[in-house]
Protein backbone atom coordinates (compact mmCIF):
# COMPACT_ATOMS: atom_id res chain seq x y z
CA UNK A 1 0.00 0.00 0.00
CA UNK A 2 1.19 3.47 -0.73
CA UNK A 3 1.66 5.38 2.46
CA UNK A 4 0.76 8.99 2.60
CA UNK A 5 1.67 12.07 4.49
CA UNK A 6 -1.65 13.85 4.07
CA UNK A 7 -2.26 13.72 7.78
CA UNK A 8 1.13 15.24 8.49
CA UNK A 9 -0.06 18.57 7.12
CA UNK A 10 -0.55 21.32 9.62
CA UNK A 11 -4.15 22.04 10.49
CA UNK A 12 -6.06 25.04 9.27
CA UNK A 13 -5.63 26.97 6.06
CA UNK A 14 -3.12 29.58 5.01
CA UNK A 15 -4.11 33.08 3.94
CA UNK A 16 -3.14 32.12 0.38
CA UNK A 17 -5.52 29.16 0.42
CA UNK A 18 -8.38 31.39 1.56
CA UNK A 19 -7.63 33.84 -1.26
CA UNK A 20 -7.40 31.01 -3.81
CA UNK A 21 -10.79 29.78 -2.67
CA UNK A 22 -12.35 33.26 -2.89
CA UNK A 23 -10.94 34.00 -6.34
CA UNK A 24 -12.04 30.55 -7.54
CA UNK A 25 -15.64 31.20 -6.46
CA UNK A 26 -15.70 34.72 -7.93
CA UNK A 27 -14.12 33.41 -11.16
CA UNK A 28 -16.77 30.70 -11.52
CA UNK A 29 -19.59 33.16 -10.83
CA UNK A 30 -18.13 35.48 -13.47
CA UNK A 31 -17.88 32.65 -16.01
CA UNK A 32 -21.45 31.62 -15.36
CA UNK A 33 -22.55 35.23 -15.80
CA UNK A 34 -20.73 35.50 -19.11
CA UNK A 35 -22.39 32.30 -20.27
CA UNK A 36 -25.83 33.69 -19.45
CA UNK A 37 -26.00 36.71 -21.72
CA UNK A 38 -29.75 36.90 -21.50
CA UNK A 39 -29.39 37.37 -17.74
CA UNK A 40 -27.15 40.38 -18.29
CA UNK A 41 -29.43 41.85 -20.90
CA UNK A 42 -32.57 41.41 -18.81
CA UNK A 43 -30.74 42.84 -15.79
CA UNK A 44 -30.08 45.97 -17.86
CA UNK A 45 -33.37 46.21 -19.68
CA UNK A 46 -35.44 46.12 -16.50
CA UNK A 47 -34.13 49.38 -14.97
CA UNK A 48 -33.88 51.02 -18.38
CA UNK A 49 -37.58 50.43 -19.00
CA UNK A 50 -38.29 52.18 -15.72
CA UNK A 51 -35.96 54.99 -16.62
CA UNK A 52 -37.02 55.54 -20.23
CA UNK A 53 -40.74 54.90 -19.92
CA UNK A 54 -41.93 55.10 -16.35
CA UNK A 55 -39.81 58.07 -15.37
CA UNK A 56 -40.65 59.95 -18.56
CA UNK A 57 -44.34 59.42 -17.92
CA UNK A 58 -44.18 60.40 -14.27
CA UNK A 59 -41.95 63.41 -14.75
CA UNK A 60 -44.93 65.75 -14.88
CA UNK A 61 -46.91 64.03 -12.16
CA UNK A 62 -44.35 64.03 -9.41
CA UNK A 63 -42.63 67.27 -8.52
CA UNK A 64 -39.41 66.87 -6.61
CA UNK A 65 -38.40 69.58 -4.18
CA UNK A 66 -34.80 70.20 -3.24
CA UNK A 67 -33.90 67.44 -0.79
CA UNK A 68 -30.50 66.18 0.29
CA UNK A 69 -28.20 65.13 -1.24
CA UNK A 70 -29.40 67.20 -4.20
CA UNK A 71 -28.57 70.89 -4.21
CA UNK A 72 -30.81 72.00 -7.05
CA UNK A 73 -34.09 70.99 -8.56
CA UNK A 74 -33.66 67.69 -10.32
CA UNK A 75 -35.50 65.73 -12.95
CA UNK A 76 -37.49 62.72 -11.85
CA UNK A 77 -35.12 60.49 -13.85
CA UNK A 78 -32.24 61.72 -11.75
CA UNK A 79 -34.21 61.00 -8.60
CA UNK A 80 -35.03 57.40 -9.42
CA UNK A 81 -31.59 56.44 -10.80
CA UNK A 82 -30.21 55.35 -7.37
CA UNK A 83 -33.41 53.41 -6.74
CA UNK A 84 -32.96 51.61 -10.03
CA UNK A 85 -29.33 50.85 -9.17
CA UNK A 86 -30.53 49.29 -5.94
CA UNK A 87 -33.23 47.44 -7.88
CA UNK A 88 -30.55 45.87 -10.08
CA UNK A 89 -28.84 44.64 -6.93
CA UNK A 90 -32.11 43.45 -5.41
CA UNK A 91 -32.86 41.34 -8.47
CA UNK A 92 -29.29 40.14 -8.65
CA UNK A 93 -29.29 39.15 -4.99
CA UNK A 94 -32.48 37.19 -5.47
CA UNK A 95 -31.20 35.70 -8.70
CA UNK A 96 -28.03 34.56 -6.95
CA UNK A 97 -30.20 32.88 -4.39
CA UNK A 98 -32.18 31.39 -7.24
CA UNK A 99 -28.93 29.99 -8.54
CA UNK A 100 -28.26 28.50 -5.10
CA UNK A 101 -31.60 26.73 -5.17
CA UNK A 102 -30.78 25.62 -8.70
CA UNK A 103 -27.30 24.59 -7.59
CA UNK A 104 -28.74 22.58 -4.77
CA UNK A 105 -31.19 20.86 -7.03
CA UNK A 106 -28.54 20.18 -9.61
CA UNK A 107 -26.00 19.12 -7.05
CA UNK A 108 -23.46 21.93 -7.61
CA UNK A 109 -24.12 23.28 -4.15
CA UNK A 110 -22.82 20.00 -2.78
CA UNK A 111 -19.49 20.59 -4.47
CA UNK A 112 -19.24 23.88 -2.64
CA UNK A 113 -20.36 22.57 0.73
CA UNK A 114 -18.00 19.57 0.86
CA UNK A 115 -15.00 21.86 0.57
CA UNK A 116 -12.86 21.66 3.71
CA UNK A 117 -12.65 25.48 3.89
CA UNK A 118 -14.96 26.70 6.69
CA UNK A 119 -18.52 26.95 5.50
CA UNK A 120 -19.08 30.55 6.61
CA UNK A 121 -16.17 31.58 4.41
CA UNK A 122 -17.55 29.65 1.42
CA UNK A 123 -20.91 31.36 1.78
CA UNK A 124 -19.28 34.77 2.28
CA UNK A 125 -17.20 34.20 -0.87
CA UNK A 126 -20.34 33.25 -2.76
CA UNK A 127 -21.94 36.51 -1.57
CA UNK A 128 -18.95 38.56 -2.65
CA UNK A 129 -19.02 36.86 -6.05
CA UNK A 130 -22.70 37.72 -6.48
CA UNK A 131 -22.00 41.31 -5.43
CA UNK A 132 -19.16 41.59 -7.96
CA UNK A 133 -21.56 40.52 -10.71
CA UNK A 134 -24.10 43.11 -9.55
CA UNK A 135 -21.44 45.82 -9.73
CA UNK A 136 -20.85 45.04 -13.41
CA UNK A 137 -24.57 45.42 -14.04
CA UNK A 138 -24.88 48.67 -12.09
CA UNK A 139 -21.95 50.33 -13.83
CA UNK A 140 -23.26 49.27 -17.25
CA UNK A 141 -26.57 50.88 -16.25
CA UNK A 142 -24.81 54.06 -15.12
CA UNK A 143 -23.02 54.24 -18.43
CA UNK A 144 -26.25 54.11 -20.41
CA UNK A 145 -27.97 56.46 -17.95
CA UNK A 146 -25.23 59.02 -18.54
CA UNK A 147 -26.47 59.40 -22.09
CA UNK A 148 -29.91 60.02 -20.62
CA UNK A 149 -28.62 63.08 -18.78
CA UNK A 150 -28.10 61.36 -15.45
CA UNK A 151 -24.73 62.83 -14.71
CA UNK A 152 -23.59 62.58 -11.12
CA UNK A 153 -20.26 64.26 -10.33
CA UNK A 154 -17.35 62.19 -11.72
CA UNK A 155 -16.07 61.44 -8.22
CA UNK A 156 -19.52 59.99 -7.48
CA UNK A 157 -18.78 56.97 -9.66
CA UNK A 158 -15.96 56.14 -7.27
CA UNK A 159 -17.59 57.07 -3.97
CA UNK A 160 -20.67 55.01 -4.79
CA UNK A 161 -18.57 51.84 -5.07
CA UNK A 162 -18.28 51.01 -1.33
CA UNK A 163 -21.99 51.77 -0.91
CA UNK A 164 -22.80 49.39 -3.74
CA UNK A 165 -20.59 46.69 -2.24
CA UNK A 166 -22.36 46.99 1.10
CA UNK A 167 -25.86 47.11 -0.36
CA UNK A 168 -25.00 44.24 -2.71
CA UNK A 169 -23.86 42.16 0.25
CA UNK A 170 -27.00 42.99 2.22
CA UNK A 171 -29.36 42.04 -0.60
CA UNK A 172 -27.31 38.97 -1.50
CA UNK A 173 -27.32 37.83 2.13
CA UNK A 174 -31.08 38.32 2.26
CA UNK A 175 -31.44 36.23 -0.89
CA UNK A 176 -29.20 33.55 0.58
CA UNK A 177 -31.22 33.48 3.78
CA UNK A 178 -34.40 33.08 1.76
CA UNK A 179 -32.85 30.42 -0.49
CA UNK A 180 -32.00 28.29 2.54
CA UNK A 181 -35.72 27.99 3.21
CA UNK A 182 -36.75 27.16 -0.35
CA UNK A 183 -36.91 23.52 -1.30
CA UNK A 184 -37.70 23.82 -4.94
CA UNK A 185 -37.31 26.28 -7.78
CA UNK A 186 -41.06 26.66 -8.19
CA UNK A 187 -41.40 28.38 -4.84
CA UNK A 188 -39.18 31.16 -6.02
CA UNK A 189 -41.98 32.87 -7.95
CA UNK A 190 -43.69 33.39 -4.60
CA UNK A 191 -40.57 34.99 -3.21
CA UNK A 192 -40.57 37.42 -6.12
CA UNK A 193 -44.10 38.48 -5.25
CA UNK A 194 -43.67 38.54 -1.51
CA UNK A 195 -40.15 39.93 -1.25
CA UNK A 196 -39.00 41.82 -4.33
CA UNK A 197 -42.12 43.81 -5.16
CA UNK A 198 -43.06 44.87 -1.61
CA UNK A 199 -39.45 45.83 -0.87
CA UNK A 200 -39.15 47.88 -4.01
CA UNK A 201 -42.47 49.70 -3.85
CA UNK A 202 -42.45 50.35 -0.11
CA UNK A 203 -39.20 52.26 -0.33
CA UNK A 204 -37.79 55.60 -1.37
CA UNK A 205 -36.73 54.20 -4.75
CA UNK A 206 -39.59 55.74 -6.74
CA UNK A 207 -40.78 58.61 -4.54
CA UNK A 208 -39.27 60.65 -1.74
CA UNK A 209 -40.52 59.61 1.67
CA UNK A 210 -41.89 63.07 2.53
CA UNK A 211 -44.40 62.63 -0.24
CA UNK A 212 -45.30 59.19 1.05
CA UNK A 213 -45.83 60.71 4.49
CA UNK A 214 -48.30 63.21 3.05
CA UNK A 215 -50.28 60.39 1.51
CA UNK A 216 -50.09 57.74 4.23
CA UNK A 217 -48.23 58.12 7.53
CA UNK A 218 -48.55 54.37 8.05
CA UNK A 219 -46.83 53.55 4.77
CA UNK A 220 -44.18 56.10 5.66
CA UNK A 221 -43.21 54.09 8.74
CA UNK A 222 -43.19 50.87 6.72
CA UNK A 223 -40.86 52.50 4.20
CA UNK A 224 -38.63 53.76 6.99
CA UNK A 225 -38.36 50.26 8.42
CA UNK A 226 -37.59 48.74 5.02
CA UNK A 227 -33.85 47.99 4.70
CA UNK A 228 -34.15 48.51 0.96
CA UNK A 229 -35.03 52.18 1.55
CA UNK A 230 -31.73 52.56 3.36
CA UNK A 231 -29.83 50.77 0.61
CA UNK A 232 -31.32 53.24 -1.87
CA UNK A 233 -30.48 56.26 0.30
CA UNK A 234 -26.96 55.00 0.97
CA UNK A 235 -26.39 54.71 -2.77
CA UNK A 236 -28.11 58.05 -3.49
CA UNK A 237 -25.89 59.97 -1.06
CA UNK A 238 -22.71 58.12 -2.05
CA UNK A 239 -23.35 58.88 -5.71
CA UNK A 240 -23.02 62.56 -4.79
CA UNK A 241 -19.98 62.05 -2.58
CA UNK A 242 -21.93 62.18 0.69
CA UNK A 243 -22.65 59.75 3.49
CA UNK A 244 -26.07 59.08 4.96
CA UNK A 245 -25.00 57.78 8.35
CA UNK A 246 -28.35 56.38 9.39
CA UNK A 247 -28.65 54.40 6.16
CA UNK A 248 -25.07 53.23 6.50
CA UNK A 249 -25.79 51.94 10.00
CA UNK A 250 -29.02 50.22 8.98
CA UNK A 251 -27.50 48.60 5.89
CA UNK A 252 -24.39 47.45 7.76
CA UNK A 253 -26.51 46.07 10.61
CA UNK A 254 -28.92 44.28 8.27
CA UNK A 255 -26.00 42.85 6.27
CA UNK A 256 -24.57 41.35 9.46
CA UNK A 257 -27.93 39.97 10.61
CA UNK A 258 -28.85 38.46 7.22
CA UNK A 259 -25.38 37.01 6.79
CA UNK A 260 -25.34 35.37 10.21
CA UNK A 261 -28.84 34.08 9.54
CA UNK A 262 -27.78 32.60 6.20
CA UNK A 263 -24.67 30.97 7.69
CA UNK A 264 -26.73 29.45 10.49
CA UNK A 265 -29.36 28.30 8.00
CA UNK A 266 -26.72 26.47 5.96
CA UNK A 267 -25.14 24.97 9.05
CA UNK A 268 -25.71 21.21 8.74
CA UNK A 269 -26.51 20.85 12.40
CA UNK A 270 -29.20 23.53 12.21
CA UNK A 271 -31.06 24.30 9.04
CA UNK A 272 -29.88 22.26 6.11
CA UNK A 273 -30.60 18.83 7.54
CA UNK A 274 -34.15 19.49 8.62
CA UNK A 275 -35.50 19.64 5.12
CA UNK A 276 -34.56 16.14 4.14
CA UNK A 277 -32.78 15.02 1.03
CA UNK A 278 -33.19 16.79 -2.30
CA UNK A 279 -35.18 15.16 -5.02
CA UNK A 280 -36.70 12.55 -2.78
CA UNK A 281 -33.51 10.53 -2.43
CA UNK A 282 -32.89 8.49 0.62
Amino acid at each position, binding site marked *: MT*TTTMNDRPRGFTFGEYITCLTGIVWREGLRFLHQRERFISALVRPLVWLFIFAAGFRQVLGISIIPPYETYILYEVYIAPGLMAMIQLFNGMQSSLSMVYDREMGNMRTLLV*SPIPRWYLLFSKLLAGTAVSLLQVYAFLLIAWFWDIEPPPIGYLTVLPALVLSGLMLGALGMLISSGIKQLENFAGVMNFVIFPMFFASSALYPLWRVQEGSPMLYYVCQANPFTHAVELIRFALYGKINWISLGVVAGCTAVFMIGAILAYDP*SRGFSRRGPAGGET
Partner: protein
Amino acid sequence: MGHHDVAAMTMADSPGGMQPQLAANPRQMLADIPALSIVSVSHSYGPRRALAGISFTVAPASFTALLGLNGAGKSTLFSLVTRLFGIQTGQISIFGHDIGREPSEALRLMGVVFQPRTLDLDLSVKQNLLYHAALHGIGRGEASRRSLELLSRIGLADRAGSKVRDLSGGQMRRVEIARALLHRPRLLLLDEPTVGLDVKARADILGHVRQLVAEQGIGVLWATHLFDEIVASDDLVVLHQGKMLARGRVSDVVATAGGQDVHSAFMRLTQATGLGGSEP
Protein backbone atom coordinates in the same frame (compact mmCIF):
# COMPACT_ATOMS: atom_id res chain seq x y z
CA MET B 1 -6.58 -5.51 -4.92
CA GLY B 2 -5.77 -4.08 -1.54
CA HIS B 3 -5.10 -6.14 1.52
CA HIS B 4 -7.96 -6.52 3.94
CA ASP B 5 -6.47 -7.61 7.22
CA VAL B 6 -7.15 -4.30 8.87
CA ALA B 7 -10.71 -4.27 7.60
CA ALA B 8 -11.36 -7.79 8.80
CA MET B 9 -9.95 -7.04 12.23
CA THR B 10 -11.86 -3.81 12.62
CA MET B 11 -15.09 -5.29 11.46
CA ALA B 12 -14.79 -7.94 14.13
CA ASP B 13 -14.48 -5.25 16.78
CA SER B 14 -17.47 -3.92 18.61
CA PRO B 15 -18.58 -0.42 17.56
CA GLY B 16 -17.34 0.99 20.81
CA GLY B 17 -13.91 -0.44 20.18
CA MET B 18 -13.39 1.46 16.96
CA GLN B 19 -11.88 4.54 18.49
CA PRO B 20 -8.52 5.13 16.82
CA GLN B 21 -5.46 4.68 18.97
CA LEU B 22 -2.81 7.33 18.59
CA ALA B 23 0.47 5.93 17.36
CA ALA B 24 3.84 7.59 17.61
CA ASN B 25 4.51 7.33 13.89
CA PRO B 26 1.98 9.30 11.83
CA ARG B 27 2.37 6.99 8.86
CA GLN B 28 1.76 3.97 11.01
CA MET B 29 -1.19 5.77 12.51
CA LEU B 30 -2.70 6.32 9.08
CA ALA B 31 -2.41 2.64 8.26
CA ASP B 32 -4.09 1.57 11.51
CA ILE B 33 -6.95 4.03 11.65
CA PRO B 34 -10.03 3.24 9.57
CA ALA B 35 -10.41 5.49 6.55
CA LEU B 36 -14.06 5.81 7.53
CA SER B 37 -15.62 4.87 10.82
CA ILE B 38 -19.37 4.97 11.33
CA VAL B 39 -20.58 4.24 14.84
CA SER B 40 -24.24 3.81 15.84
CA VAL B 41 -25.53 6.39 13.36
CA SER B 42 -29.28 6.98 13.17
CA HIS B 43 -31.15 9.64 11.21
CA SER B 44 -34.79 10.65 10.89
CA TYR B 45 -36.70 13.01 8.63
CA GLY B 46 -39.40 14.09 11.02
CA PRO B 47 -41.19 10.94 12.11
CA ARG B 48 -39.68 8.87 9.29
CA ARG B 49 -36.57 6.96 10.30
CA ALA B 50 -34.10 6.77 7.40
CA LEU B 51 -31.18 5.11 9.23
CA ALA B 52 -31.18 3.07 12.41
CA GLY B 53 -28.02 2.29 14.39
CA ILE B 54 -25.57 1.89 11.50
CA SER B 55 -22.00 0.89 12.40
CA PHE B 56 -19.19 -0.16 10.07
CA THR B 57 -15.71 0.82 8.98
CA VAL B 58 -13.87 1.20 5.71
CA ALA B 59 -10.18 0.32 5.90
CA PRO B 60 -7.50 2.12 3.91
CA ALA B 61 -6.74 0.31 0.63
CA SER B 62 -10.03 -1.53 0.69
CA PHE B 63 -13.12 -1.60 -1.48
CA THR B 64 -16.30 -1.61 0.56
CA ALA B 65 -19.58 -2.00 -1.26
CA LEU B 66 -22.61 -0.45 0.37
CA LEU B 67 -25.41 -2.55 -1.06
CA GLY B 68 -29.04 -1.56 -0.84
CA LEU B 69 -32.11 -1.00 -2.92
CA ASN B 70 -33.38 2.48 -3.72
CA GLY B 71 -34.63 3.99 -0.49
CA ALA B 72 -32.36 1.85 1.70
CA GLY B 73 -30.73 4.95 3.19
CA LYS B 74 -27.52 5.05 1.15
CA SER B 75 -27.81 8.67 0.07
CA THR B 76 -28.75 9.79 3.58
CA LEU B 77 -25.64 8.06 4.86
CA PHE B 78 -23.57 9.83 2.20
CA SER B 79 -25.08 13.18 3.16
CA LEU B 80 -24.13 12.57 6.78
CA VAL B 81 -20.58 11.49 5.97
CA THR B 82 -20.07 14.52 3.72
CA ARG B 83 -21.60 16.84 6.34
CA LEU B 84 -24.44 18.01 4.17
CA PHE B 85 -26.68 16.90 7.01
CA GLY B 86 -25.86 17.20 10.68
CA ILE B 87 -25.48 13.98 12.64
CA GLN B 88 -28.46 13.39 14.93
CA THR B 89 -27.16 10.29 16.69
CA GLY B 90 -23.86 8.46 16.52
CA GLN B 91 -20.39 9.33 15.34
CA ILE B 92 -18.64 9.50 11.98
CA SER B 93 -14.91 9.99 11.58
CA ILE B 94 -12.49 10.04 8.69
CA PHE B 95 -9.00 8.82 9.59
CA GLY B 96 -9.85 9.57 13.19
CA HIS B 97 -11.16 13.09 12.52
CA ASP B 98 -14.70 13.48 13.79
CA ILE B 99 -16.83 15.00 10.99
CA GLY B 100 -18.73 17.17 13.46
CA ARG B 101 -15.81 18.43 15.53
CA GLU B 102 -13.05 18.57 12.90
CA PRO B 103 -14.93 19.00 9.62
CA SER B 104 -12.07 20.64 7.74
CA GLU B 105 -9.58 17.88 8.52
CA ALA B 106 -12.15 15.21 7.74
CA LEU B 107 -13.33 16.76 4.47
CA ARG B 108 -9.77 17.35 3.34
CA LEU B 109 -9.09 13.60 3.39
CA MET B 110 -12.26 12.72 1.52
CA GLY B 111 -13.22 12.77 -2.15
CA VAL B 112 -16.87 12.44 -3.12
CA VAL B 113 -18.78 11.49 -6.25
CA PHE B 114 -22.45 12.19 -5.63
CA GLN B 115 -25.28 10.34 -7.26
CA PRO B 116 -26.65 13.37 -9.15
CA ARG B 117 -24.23 14.95 -11.59
CA THR B 118 -22.53 17.89 -9.94
CA LEU B 119 -20.43 19.24 -12.80
CA ASP B 120 -21.20 22.66 -14.22
CA LEU B 121 -22.43 21.82 -17.71
CA ASP B 122 -21.67 25.23 -19.23
CA LEU B 123 -18.06 25.26 -18.11
CA SER B 124 -15.24 23.27 -19.65
CA VAL B 125 -13.81 20.13 -18.08
CA LYS B 126 -10.72 22.00 -16.98
CA GLN B 127 -12.68 24.94 -15.60
CA ASN B 128 -14.69 22.52 -13.48
CA LEU B 129 -11.52 20.94 -12.15
CA LEU B 130 -9.85 24.29 -11.43
CA TYR B 131 -12.94 25.43 -9.54
CA HIS B 132 -12.87 22.33 -7.37
CA ALA B 133 -9.15 22.80 -6.74
CA ALA B 134 -9.76 26.40 -5.68
CA LEU B 135 -12.35 25.19 -3.19
CA HIS B 136 -9.54 23.20 -1.61
CA GLY B 137 -7.14 26.13 -1.66
CA ILE B 138 -5.02 24.68 -4.46
CA GLY B 139 -3.52 27.42 -6.65
CA ARG B 140 -3.89 27.58 -10.43
CA GLY B 141 -0.47 26.28 -11.48
CA GLU B 142 -0.60 23.23 -9.26
CA ALA B 143 -4.27 22.65 -10.08
CA SER B 144 -3.58 22.76 -13.84
CA ARG B 145 -0.74 20.27 -13.46
CA ARG B 146 -2.82 17.87 -11.39
CA SER B 147 -5.82 18.24 -13.70
CA LEU B 148 -3.80 17.31 -16.75
CA GLU B 149 -2.25 14.36 -14.95
CA LEU B 150 -5.62 13.03 -13.81
CA LEU B 151 -7.29 13.63 -17.17
CA SER B 152 -4.47 11.75 -18.89
CA ARG B 153 -5.02 8.84 -16.53
CA ILE B 154 -8.69 8.61 -17.46
CA GLY B 155 -7.97 9.13 -21.15
CA LEU B 156 -9.63 12.52 -21.41
CA ALA B 157 -6.64 14.85 -21.65
CA ASP B 158 -7.73 15.93 -25.12
CA ARG B 159 -11.16 16.92 -23.80
CA ALA B 160 -9.86 19.37 -21.17
CA GLY B 161 -11.20 22.33 -23.14
CA SER B 162 -14.55 20.73 -24.03
CA LYS B 163 -17.73 21.87 -22.41
CA VAL B 164 -19.00 19.25 -19.98
CA ARG B 165 -22.33 19.35 -21.78
CA ASP B 166 -20.63 17.76 -24.82
CA LEU B 167 -19.33 14.72 -22.91
CA SER B 168 -21.04 11.34 -22.69
CA GLY B 169 -22.47 10.12 -19.39
CA GLY B 170 -19.51 7.80 -18.81
CA GLN B 171 -17.01 10.57 -19.56
CA MET B 172 -18.77 12.90 -17.12
CA ARG B 173 -18.53 10.29 -14.40
CA ARG B 174 -14.83 9.81 -15.08
CA VAL B 175 -14.30 13.55 -14.87
CA GLU B 176 -16.18 13.58 -11.56
CA ILE B 177 -13.91 10.86 -10.22
CA ALA B 178 -10.85 12.78 -11.44
CA ARG B 179 -12.23 15.87 -9.73
CA ALA B 180 -12.78 13.97 -6.49
CA LEU B 181 -9.11 12.92 -6.57
CA LEU B 182 -7.68 16.40 -7.30
CA HIS B 183 -6.94 17.21 -3.68
CA ARG B 184 -5.43 13.74 -3.16
CA PRO B 185 -7.90 12.30 -0.69
CA ARG B 186 -7.31 9.00 1.11
CA LEU B 187 -10.96 8.05 1.15
CA LEU B 188 -13.21 8.06 -1.90
CA LEU B 189 -16.99 7.94 -1.57
CA LEU B 190 -19.06 7.08 -4.62
CA ASP B 191 -22.85 7.09 -4.50
CA GLU B 192 -24.17 4.82 -7.26
CA PRO B 193 -21.68 6.22 -9.77
CA THR B 194 -22.61 3.83 -12.60
CA VAL B 195 -26.34 4.53 -12.67
CA GLY B 196 -27.52 5.23 -16.21
CA LEU B 197 -24.28 4.13 -17.87
CA ASP B 198 -23.81 1.44 -20.48
CA VAL B 199 -22.02 -1.84 -19.72
CA LYS B 200 -18.64 -0.73 -21.01
CA ALA B 201 -18.65 2.62 -19.22
CA ARG B 202 -19.66 0.84 -16.00
CA ALA B 203 -16.82 -1.65 -16.32
CA ASP B 204 -14.32 1.14 -17.08
CA ILE B 205 -15.28 3.15 -14.04
CA LEU B 206 -15.37 0.18 -11.72
CA GLY B 207 -11.98 -0.96 -13.02
CA HIS B 208 -10.52 2.50 -12.56
CA VAL B 209 -11.69 2.76 -8.96
CA ARG B 210 -10.41 -0.72 -8.10
CA GLN B 211 -7.08 0.30 -9.56
CA LEU B 212 -7.01 3.33 -7.25
CA VAL B 213 -7.50 1.00 -4.29
CA ALA B 214 -4.74 -1.37 -5.38
CA GLU B 215 -2.17 1.15 -6.56
CA GLN B 216 -2.72 4.17 -4.34
CA GLY B 217 -4.11 2.58 -1.21
CA ILE B 218 -7.27 4.65 -1.27
CA GLY B 219 -10.16 3.43 0.85
CA VAL B 220 -13.35 3.28 -1.22
CA LEU B 221 -16.98 3.22 -0.16
CA TRP B 222 -19.03 2.32 -3.22
CA ALA B 223 -22.81 2.56 -2.84
CA THR B 224 -24.72 0.42 -5.31
CA HIS B 225 -27.81 -1.62 -5.90
CA LEU B 226 -26.15 -3.69 -8.64
CA PHE B 227 -24.98 -7.09 -7.43
CA ASP B 228 -22.60 -7.69 -10.34
CA GLU B 229 -20.39 -4.79 -9.22
CA ILE B 230 -19.35 -6.70 -6.12
CA VAL B 231 -16.63 -9.39 -6.02
CA ALA B 232 -15.92 -11.99 -3.34
CA SER B 233 -12.87 -10.25 -1.91
CA ASP B 234 -14.68 -6.94 -1.32
CA ASP B 235 -16.02 -5.84 2.00
CA LEU B 236 -19.77 -5.58 2.06
CA VAL B 237 -22.34 -3.65 4.04
CA VAL B 238 -25.96 -4.57 3.35
CA LEU B 239 -28.44 -1.81 4.02
CA HIS B 240 -32.18 -2.35 3.86
CA GLN B 241 -34.92 0.08 4.86
CA GLY B 242 -32.48 2.04 6.98
CA LYS B 243 -31.14 -0.98 8.83
CA MET B 244 -27.83 -2.74 8.44
CA LEU B 245 -28.48 -6.42 7.76
CA ALA B 246 -24.90 -7.62 7.34
CA ARG B 247 -21.30 -6.49 7.17
CA GLY B 248 -18.01 -8.24 6.52
CA ARG B 249 -16.07 -9.83 3.68
CA VAL B 250 -18.41 -10.69 0.81
CA SER B 251 -17.54 -14.39 0.96
CA ASP B 252 -18.28 -14.44 4.71
CA VAL B 253 -21.58 -12.60 4.33
CA VAL B 254 -22.67 -14.97 1.57
CA ALA B 255 -21.69 -18.00 3.63
CA THR B 256 -23.40 -16.71 6.78
CA ALA B 257 -26.58 -15.85 4.92
CA GLY B 258 -26.56 -19.26 3.30
CA GLY B 259 -26.74 -18.05 -0.30
CA GLN B 260 -24.72 -19.03 -3.34
CA ASP B 261 -23.83 -15.52 -4.41
CA VAL B 262 -24.39 -11.92 -3.35
CA HIS B 263 -27.77 -11.79 -5.00
CA SER B 264 -29.18 -14.86 -3.26
CA ALA B 265 -27.59 -13.82 0.03
CA PHE B 266 -29.21 -10.40 -0.25
CA MET B 267 -32.61 -11.93 -0.99
CA ARG B 268 -32.32 -14.23 2.00
CA LEU B 269 -31.27 -11.41 4.29
CA THR B 270 -34.07 -9.09 3.24
CA GLN B 271 -36.67 -11.83 3.35
CA ALA B 272 -35.53 -12.80 6.81
CA THR B 273 -36.07 -9.21 7.89
CA GLY B 274 -39.51 -9.21 6.35
CA LEU B 275 -40.45 -12.33 8.30
CA GLY B 276 -39.04 -11.57 11.66
CA GLY B 277 -36.18 -9.12 11.49
CA SER B 278 -33.39 -11.55 12.35
CA GLU B 279 -29.95 -10.20 11.52
CA PRO B 280 -26.85 -12.21 10.80
